[in-house]
């Protein structure tokens, strides 16, 4: 069986393995389980995909889609010139229990840097990695080093809200633009920092929009809100519950923990309620088994979730149970060729925030290509930036929040 062959290629070089896997999976279909054909290198469930359906504004009303321009290519025109040693830094959890998120961002950024360096012989940009383990204390140790390295003209990170809070002052005083791909706590931008830019919509935008959409457009009268204990999940659930108003059913709301794999009690609560829908505020790693266990328990009300879950991995892991799930995201869909390039370079599929990592790195690289040589120049460039990324339009207001507040609604079909 070809699959067995694929499993045994483990010892080979990653690139080779990835290529093999893609070809192996592309050409075969599974006979005995209902004719599933693989759409990607990860064996997915029968043709399920996350498909964009509508775009909504903060009041949950549909907004017609205006055709946006092509995303900016990090490679540029290939004629960039810059000083030797020009670098950008990435700070986030690269080891430790939260390493996956940091790596997603870093690997995404590496795709952009790789493309840039390959195309621009006259400008080789290094990406310097700084590991914070997601620990604010560690971040305070790392931050002075980043600030002290004069060759670093922009920072991708810090990844988490906690470490961002702990180090924001440092970067602000050093005038180093820090573009976070993942810190979603709404309060971060209220500190008066001049150098912080959030590369995604904060929960205060997405929450009300999705909540209103669920009540007004989808017509749900009773929704169970389930949240995880992450910064992201807690903040989002708060906004969603507030936005839902009376439609949020407290008797079947539940809290789970990041890393949980079993949701028996939450499932039980929901199955014994007569809710119209479940909203899950958290990441796909928990959402997938949760959705699956809901289906296993015979609960077939709609599963609604947000950008943390809006990931191909959700469909891969939840399989048929993901069908019909409604996922919001402030982001546009990640194109397939990005996923392919990412997997070829990093040996794994892109995850949450990979696209943001790529987009933000692209912005920095575009800046460097346009002749930016120092932090002040980069700060100026980012402040005035207005361009398309893979995920969304990037343009910031003066607090460092994205000015566009449109949310996409997706459905797994």
């Amino acid at each position, binding site marked *: 069986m070809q699959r067995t062959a694929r499993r045994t290629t483990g010892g080979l070089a990653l690139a080779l393995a990835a290529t093999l896997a893609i070809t192996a999976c592309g050409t075969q279909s599974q006979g005995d389980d209902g004719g599933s054909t693989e759409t990607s290198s990860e064996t997915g469930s029968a043709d399920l995909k996350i498909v964009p359906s509508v775009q909504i504004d903060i009041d949950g009303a549909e907004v017609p889609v205006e055709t946006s321009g092509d995303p900016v290519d990090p490679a540029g025109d290939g004629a960039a010139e810059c000083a030797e040693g020009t670098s950008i830094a990435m700070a986030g959890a690269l080891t430790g229990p*939260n390493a996956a998120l940091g790596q997603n961002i870093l690997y995404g950024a590496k795709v952009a840097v790789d493309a840039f360096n390959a195309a621009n012989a006259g400008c080789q940009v290094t990406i310097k990695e700084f590991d914070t383990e997601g620990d604010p*204390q560690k971040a305070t140790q790392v931050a*002075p*080093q980043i600030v*002290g390295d004069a060759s670093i003209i922009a920072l991708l990170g810090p990844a988490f809200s*906690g470490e961002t809070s702990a180090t924001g*002052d440092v970067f602000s*005083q050093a005038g180093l633009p820090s573009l976070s791909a993942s810190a979603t706590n709404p309060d971060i931008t209220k500190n008066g920092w001049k150098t912080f830019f959030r590369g995604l919509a904060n929960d205060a935008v997405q929450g009300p929009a999705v909540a209103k959409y669920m009540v007004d457009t989808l017509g749900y009268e009773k929704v169970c809100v389930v949240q995880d204990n992450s910064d992201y999940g*807690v903040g989002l659930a708060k906004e969603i519950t507030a936005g839902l108003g009376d439609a949020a059913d407290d008797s079947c709301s539940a809290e789970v923990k990041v890393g949980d794999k079993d949701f028996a009690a939450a499932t039980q609560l929901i199955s014994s309620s007569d809710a119209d829908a479940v909203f899950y505020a958290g990441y796909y790693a928990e959402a997938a088994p949760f959705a699956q266990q809901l289906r296993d328990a015979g609960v077939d009300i709609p599963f609604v979730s947000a950008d943390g879950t809006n990931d191909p991995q959700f469909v891969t892991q939840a399989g048929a149970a993901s069908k019909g799930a409604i996922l919001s995201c402030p982001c546009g869909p990640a194109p397939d060729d990005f996923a392919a390039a990412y997997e070829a370079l990093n040996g794994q599929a892109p995850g949450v925030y990979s696209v943001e990592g790529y987009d933000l790195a692209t912005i920095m690289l575009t800046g460097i290509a346009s002749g930016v040589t120092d932090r002040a120049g980069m700060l100026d460039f980012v402040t005035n930036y207005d361009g398309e990324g893979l995920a969304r339009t990037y343009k910031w207001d003066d607090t460092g929040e994205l000015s566009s507040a449109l949310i996409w609604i997706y459905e797994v079909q």
Partner: protein
Amino acid sequence: MSTSTPAENDGTTQPVRPRPELPPAGQTPVAQRPHGGLGDRFRLWWDALARPAQWGVGVPFILFVALLPILNIPVLTTVGTNFGAVMAQFGMYALIAIGLNVVVGQAGLLDLGYVGFYAIGAYTLAILTSPDSPWNVTQPEGWLSDDWAWLAILPVAVAITAMSGLVLGSPTLRLRGDYLAIVTLGFGEIVRLLADNLDEITGGGQGLKSVAYPRLGVTEELPNGVFSAGNVGTTLNSGVWWFWLSLVFIIISLMLVGNLERSRVGRAWVAIREDEDAAEIMGVPTFRFKLWAFVIGASIGGVSGAIYAGQVQFVIPTNFNIINSVLFLCAVVLGGQGNKLGVILGAFIIVYLPNFFLGRTSLFGIPIDGNEIANYKYLFFGVALMVLMIFRPQGLIPVRQKLLTYGRELYVAARRTLAKMPDGGPQAAYATAAPASGTGSGTDGPAGNGAGERDETTDGGNR
């Protein structure tokens, strides 16, 4: 590790002779092999010094350590992380190690939930001073001025941590060894889960930010003072200031613990550690002294937690994982359970080593991948624990019990006699030396215990 091979070190000065040491600190036949390396000679030399001379040596040494992050010594200074901030973390871990050492090293109670006390200290400070918390007492909502908030809340944090030690200790300290370890492990997790679940007070997974810190040294460039995270100067950054602050607390707690160790309490701890049943029978109120150890250990952990919350200005439950408890324990075991200076070294190793490798691409000209090495730190610490337990369970700098409060000279004299003793084997040497050192001046083990127990019995009679 030089101390473990007596022959090498002693060979130059004296004829090699195994010392009539009895096992240190709750140890076993494993530890019964003699020690007589550098460490011992240093110890002897140190003990022989007069008090003023000890100060004369000690103060410059402490000053040197304090100035380490400023001196910028080549190889020693960390590359990937800021040395001052690393030393600040070392300061906090050293405090923790001193506190945990009281519980584990001196009283022999294995506490796997020590991170809980650290968390309680940090959270007390955060809950009372963070604007996100409903119980914030600082301005503008509260009455407490921001400038003094950290210092004012610190005693509160310590008091609450001490109380939590009492609350945890009173039911659980009736349990023995292994059970206690698992129960404290559960306690540590419960504290973290409480911080996670009681989100209306603790902020849950969002944590509490803008925690108070001392506002000192406010200048034009540093509107928030030298302790603020915004102080990123090349030499005198906030990390250095926090390191100095924790040094002050380290010295205070060392004095406190040192005095306790030499007091009735300390002797009771040793007695409990060596043989709880015997101690109980001899009249030591074991439960009460165990509780003491727990409470004192907890409060020192609370101080460290409060320093942490102040430095990072942000607390979140994930930073108080059980894995930290194990790291703390690792510091104590590595340094030498029961030896309060040893455990500080242990804390230094735990904090410094991973940071030493971080971001380093070459060491003494040899190319290395420092990040990769730092990545494996838990693996290394795990292996270190296992290897240490097999070959050197007493730690790098083992403890020597000397239970005599005022008999230093006698002790030194006795040790010197032992060292110069002609043939006759360790047993003979011990037999002759012990009486020579007087009734109360036992060196180690049983003799020491005897002193402690006698003491306790008389006290018991008086009560």
